[in-house]
């Protein structure tokens, strides 16, 4: 188990968001855009690598790290994708070294996403060597039928083999990703997935309700009426995850995330707490130095921009105190610990309108929200409608 922030050591089982308000962590996200095939549900930017792409990519990362000029301690690193695990050991090693050369000190938490098929001993060894602490494994399901429905190419046995190898390589922390509400999936199948996942004993679980993103194969099937969405089913699956995982000793700390106490993903808590992160690689998003922005999605586009000395130039948003305060509430409420309203206001030096208090009271009356002094948090029912609440918060906060 990793501690992500030194100040937490003295306190017993702290609520993660409290801690993050105290320290000022910086996270680094590295997007590795390569996949061997495209999953039916995936809307993330990724491409099938051509010869020489890995080197061009790594050269780009080197250039971007130069431009980003990181000059302070970095709390967390997260490699996502795409499939970072698709990189050969040598490339993994070079990517790690590029980073380490730029960081004043090694990060306390360093996560790499892998698919079961991409997990190889040599790769794991390379990752351990450069200082990676945490593997996030895209298991998705243990049911062969559902794996096929999702367009995943690994057989279920590959998941067990992968977990075994990760264990033996000696990583401190392991996350398993699960997807639910797959068309045709029964509640029993979902229970079986949860049970098989917890039986493997990871210290972290992410459970994602299948969403139909535009530009995915599933979205096309949905619009053609070949699959359908069922809200009641989604609700029962969400509830099932909450109950079953709690019984197995995992504490929900965000809508889709569960962890053994202390094993929460510090990198993501940093994001939801509206702190700072620097995104490296095509399509990677940053929130740093007064701006929010993203790199272009596309290896060549990204490299072109870097050549012109530009990064995080897409979707640029100026980070004003009002925007950060509003987003702190919207995204803070997605966490089970909730968020401290007065503290957010003080942190960003803003004054929330009276309407906010009125609305919070209404939600309390509707049993969507609980209050504990300055702290607000959603009830189980509130979590189910978090997006609607978020939209209403933005409506009040401008």
């Amino acid at each position: 188990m990793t501690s992500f922030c030194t100040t937490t050591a003295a306190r017993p089982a702290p609520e993660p968001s409290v801690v993050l308000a105290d320290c000022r962590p910086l996270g680094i996200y590295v997007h590795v855009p390569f996949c061997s095939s495209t999953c039916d549900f995936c809307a993330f930017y990724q491409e099938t690598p051509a010869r020489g792409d890995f080197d061009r990519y790594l050269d780009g990362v080197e250039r971007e790290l130069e431009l980003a000029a990181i000059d302070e301690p970095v709390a967390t690193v997260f490699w996502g994708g795409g499939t970072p695990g698709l990189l050969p050991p040598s490339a993994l090693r070079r990517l790690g070294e590029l980073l380490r050369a730029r960081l004043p000190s090694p990060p306390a938490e360093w996560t790499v996403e892998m698919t079961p098929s991409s997990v190889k001993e040599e790769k794991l060894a390379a990752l351990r060597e450069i200082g990676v602490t945490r593997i996030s494994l895209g298991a998705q399901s243990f049911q062969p039928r559902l794996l096929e429905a999702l367009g995943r190419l690994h057989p279920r046995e590959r998941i067990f083999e992968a977990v075994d190898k990760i264990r033996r390589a000696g990583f401190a922390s392991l996350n398993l990703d699960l997807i639910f509400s797959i068309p045709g999936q029964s509640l029993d199948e979902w229970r079986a997935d949860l049970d098989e996942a917890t039986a493997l004993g990871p210290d972290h679980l992410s459970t994602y309700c299948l969403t139909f993103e535009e530009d995915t194969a599933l979205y096309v099937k949905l619009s053609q009426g070949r699959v359908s969405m069922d809200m009641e089913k989604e609700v029962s699956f969400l509830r099932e995850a909450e109950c079953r995982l709690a019984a197995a000793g995992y504490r929900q700390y965000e809508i889709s995330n569960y962890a053994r106490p202390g094993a929460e993903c510090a990198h993501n808590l940093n994001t939801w707490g509206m702190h700072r992160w620097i995104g490296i690689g095509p399509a990677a998003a940053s929130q740093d130095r007064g701006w929010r922005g993203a790199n272009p999605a596309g290896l060549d586009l990204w490299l072109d921009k870097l050549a012109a000395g530009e990064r995080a130039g897409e979707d640029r948003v100026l980070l004003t105190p009002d925007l950060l305060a509003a987003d702190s509430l919207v995204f803070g409420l997605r966490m089970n610990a909730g968020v401290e309203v007065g503290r957010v206001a003080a942190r960003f030096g803003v004054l929330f309108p009276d309407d906010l208090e009125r609305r919070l009271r209404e939600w309390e009356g509707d049993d969507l929200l609980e209050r504990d002094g300055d702290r607000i948090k959603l009830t189980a029912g509130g979590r189910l409608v978090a997006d609607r609440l978020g939209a209403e918060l933005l409506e009040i906060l401008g």
Partner: protein
Amino acid sequence: MDLKHIRNFCIIAHVDHGKTTLSDRLLEHTATVTQRELKAQHLDSMDLERERGITIKCHPVSMIYRDKEGEKYFLNLIDTPGHVDFSYEVSRSLAACEGALLLIDASQGVEAQTVANAQLAFNQNLKVIPVINKIDLPSANLEMVTRQLEDILAIPAEEAILASGKSGIGIDEIFEAVAHRLPSPRLADYPATRALVFDCNFDTYKGVICYVRVFSGTIRVGQHMLMMSDKVKMEVKEVGFFSPAPVKTHELGPGRVGYVVTNIKSVADIKIGDTITGADKPAAEMLPGYKEVRPMVFSGIYPIDTSDYEKLKASLSRLRLNDASLIYQSESSVALGFGFRCGFLGLLHMEIVQERIRREYDVDIILTYPSVIYRVVQAGQGSIEIDNPVHMPDPSHIDEILEPTIRAIIHTPVDSVGDVLSLIMDKRGICEHTETLDETRLMLRCVLPLNEILVDFYDRLKSITHGYGSMDYELAEYQPSDLVKLDILVNSEPVDAFSSIVHRSKAEHKGRALCAKLAEIIPQQLFKIPVQAAVGGKVVARETISALRKDVTAKCYGGDITRKRKLLEKQKEGKKRMKQVGRVSIPQEAFVQVLRAQ
């Protein structure tokens, strides 16, 4: 021009019996317009009129006709509006004439409006010339029509002229009849100037143009005149006649029909049916038949986009320039924001105004339920008139409510009469008299509450008679009725735009239908919403909209924050366009759907 050679006449007919085609043919025959100039339906100049095949505004036109002996006649054709909403205008147009061509479709026969219009003409003592039109149609049934003429209208069949506006059959005969059967202008020897204003129009450059029929005396440019109803003085700037384009002249003498432009700038200051007289030597009596026109149907007009309020206001004021019978005043609704309470002559008038606001002024609007004027007798406080359910006093203070009724003439095929009678019953009407028109058709005379025919009566009549039924009506007296105000409450808050005044026997049924419709179209919200219909505080119908179950997306990491915010912003914008009723957000679309469904 001597009076003996002036004839003033109009054409009256049931809708679609060919009035406009015949008018065109008359203009063409007298070379008033050439074939080339003649676009179909020359006299109806508004787009809407052409589209709906109806005449809304009257346009007089003067023609020169030489009879068979070579005598030259000056004929003034006064077009009449073809709809019951404008029956006062029809009666004023008739008052400007000495005779009328009563047009009857040879295959359709006498219809409800034929009867109503013929009665209007008889009441004005006009000489009526029956014209059986479209006789060249294969379905023409002359025997039936001539029998109906005699039986229903008591007009000798031998007076009828057989004609076809389309192919020009009988046109000469019609002109001869107008010249020789119609009397020359009446009331010409009255000792002072009197002219009847039977319509007016607004011209951006000239201001108000009054269409007049001079009975006695002469109107000249530069004269000072007087509107007799309210003693408003004015100076004549221009006079002329229509041919059919306006032709300026120096004066309009007795018997003439034409236009007068004065220094009056707003049609609201002109009253249709008023008498113009000389200011220096005013007439002692007005021409007969003048009455103040009052709107019968009321509805709130609101902009769908609240920021269009000023645009709506401007469009109403511009419409009113040319339509004095449209009245409006600003009002506000909790649910719909700021808008206007408007009064109309009838349903068609309401529809036309609404269409013109949408088309000509490009304002998207929503109309509340149409209402009539109710008389509410309050305990110890006399009676008040109410045209908006919102102003209904508390039931405990009401002694009695009276509602306006209409006297209707309905024509129906014999085999649909059962359905028509049950429709009349359903609409709380009473059938007072039944008459056989021929083997296949009946004429019903009935009395119905006006508020019951506001919405779907005519459509239903048409549908159950497979299009063969027809109706015409006139307003009758107020009658006491067991009326109640039906309120709709969403999450216990009354929504004023959905309130209506209904008969007690219908409150529950209507309440149920409204609640069900609302429950269907108000989107789920964060909490459970009761939708209720209530009469005087007592709930008569109820539906519940269950709370929203799930609205959350699973993934939200660094790269998703911007995307997520955009999505939430979109949701927020969607909500902004909704109307807030208490805590409930009701989409504008819901109001439109519910109010339209009525």
